[in-house]
């Protein structure tokens, strides 16, 4: 049976992982390659490395870090941040990344999704969506959650799928960093309208929150950062907990 995936996300700035509370104040949490390897050994199913300052400052994700991760980690990993072209994607895949995550650049240039899918296959293209619920309407944000767009979450997710996205990584900006749980209602709706996997992100503070993302939110995978980086949740204990709650996980 296909397992629900647990994905630690490593936000990278200047070669070090950081995690922002509501995307603003950063706390330092270590070397991405060492952390990635430790997570892989602890039972993480995949890893995501996001160059969080890249889209804001226009910088490119560090190819060297990607290569070092590929050499040292034996599970799949996704890289995001600052990817603006099919050529950028080719460089990251050649360095050893398995998938790329695009966010602002996909909203600005939706053809980028089909460009990636046609050149490298749908499975490579993760479309990340940062959204916030404004007056009952989920609105997509760009530039690390700073700038609202005209696009609405559910329409954009469907369009991204139709253009060739392999997965949707949905972050609720209202929930991110607050540790009060994932946006399960919106997740469940995404799962109902999409035929590709949905990764839940933003808001996790306890093991129950992961359970809810999989049961109430029907997510295929759940992503979190600080609860893992600061050892508030141990991945193997989390998997035992989910297993005991009848959720199929790799242990």
């Amino acid at each position, binding site marked *: *049976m*296909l*397992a629900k*995936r647990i994905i630690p996300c490593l936000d990278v700035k200047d070669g070090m992982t950081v995690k922002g509370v509501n995307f603003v104040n950063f706390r330092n949490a270590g070397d991405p390659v060492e952390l990635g390897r430790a997570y*892989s050994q602890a039972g993480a*199913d995949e890893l995501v490395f996001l160059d969080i300052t890249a889209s804001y400052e226009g910088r490119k994700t560090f190819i060297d870090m990607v290569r070092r991760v*590929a*050499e*040292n980690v*034996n*599970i*799949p990993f996704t890289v995001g941040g600052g990817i603006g072209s099919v050529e950028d994607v080719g460089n990251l*895949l*050649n*360095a*050893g990344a*398995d998938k790329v995550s695009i966010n602002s650049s996909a909203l600005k240039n939706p053809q980028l999704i089909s460009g990636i899918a046609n050149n*490298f*296959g*749908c*499975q*490579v293209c993760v479309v990340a969506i940062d959204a916030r619920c404004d007056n009952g309407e989920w609105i997509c944000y760009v530039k690390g959650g700073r700038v609202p767009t005209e696009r609405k979450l559910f329409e954009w997710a469907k369009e991204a799928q139709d253009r060739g996205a*392999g*997965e949707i990584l949905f972050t609720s900006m209202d929930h991110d960093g607050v540790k009060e749980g994932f946006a399960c209602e919106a997740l469940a709706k995404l799962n109902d309208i999409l*035929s*590709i*996997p949905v990764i839940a992100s933003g808001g996790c503070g306890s093991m129950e929150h992961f359970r809810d993302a999989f049961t109430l939110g029907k997510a*295929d*995978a759940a992503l979190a950062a600080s609860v893992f980086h600061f050892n508030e949740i141990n991945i193997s204990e989390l998997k035992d907990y989910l297993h005991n709650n009848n959720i199929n996980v*790799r242990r």
Partner: protein
Amino acid sequence: MKVAIIKYNAGNIFSVLYALKRIGIEAEVTDDFDTIRNADKVIFPGVGEASTAMAYLKEKGLDSLIKSLKQPVLGICIGLQLMCQSSEEGNAECMGIFDVKVQKFDNSSCPEFKIPHMGWNTISATAGNSLITEEQNNAYAYFVHSYYAPVCKHTISQCDYITPFSAALHKDNFYATQFHPEKSGDLGEQILKNFILL
């Protein structure tokens, strides 16, 4: 031990190189016929589209070369599919090493099964096979694919997603896995070690 990884127009080839390095094996990524022929082990990996990959292999003559190899050969993911008779992906005529036709997953009667089949799923083992041993029965391997080889006489490991399908095939000196051993954690590294020891 000389290990050749076949270089062609498919992605993820360097991941296999890195995975071998982690188990202490230096391999060479190459499309040189003599280097491939003289290797002790040959790995045919990749992520890509079947008809495009097949056209490239034919143009370079790599398809005939692979079929003629006598040492252990391991196909991975699209490698497995290209070693079958044909694939519904781009209606590709493939190498025909394994006597089975690759099909697309059909979720029309069960839309809750998403396509591609992406993530960790359990694989079975067949008694007496050296690539995937009984110790690895029911372990989780990492899959990413929309097409599959049905269960057939060459199947040495099964996985179940919508329908039971071939997680691994074996015939003579040819082995293949639909999952990615290079991305399947400790299990994958053990399977690569098993292949190197064949």
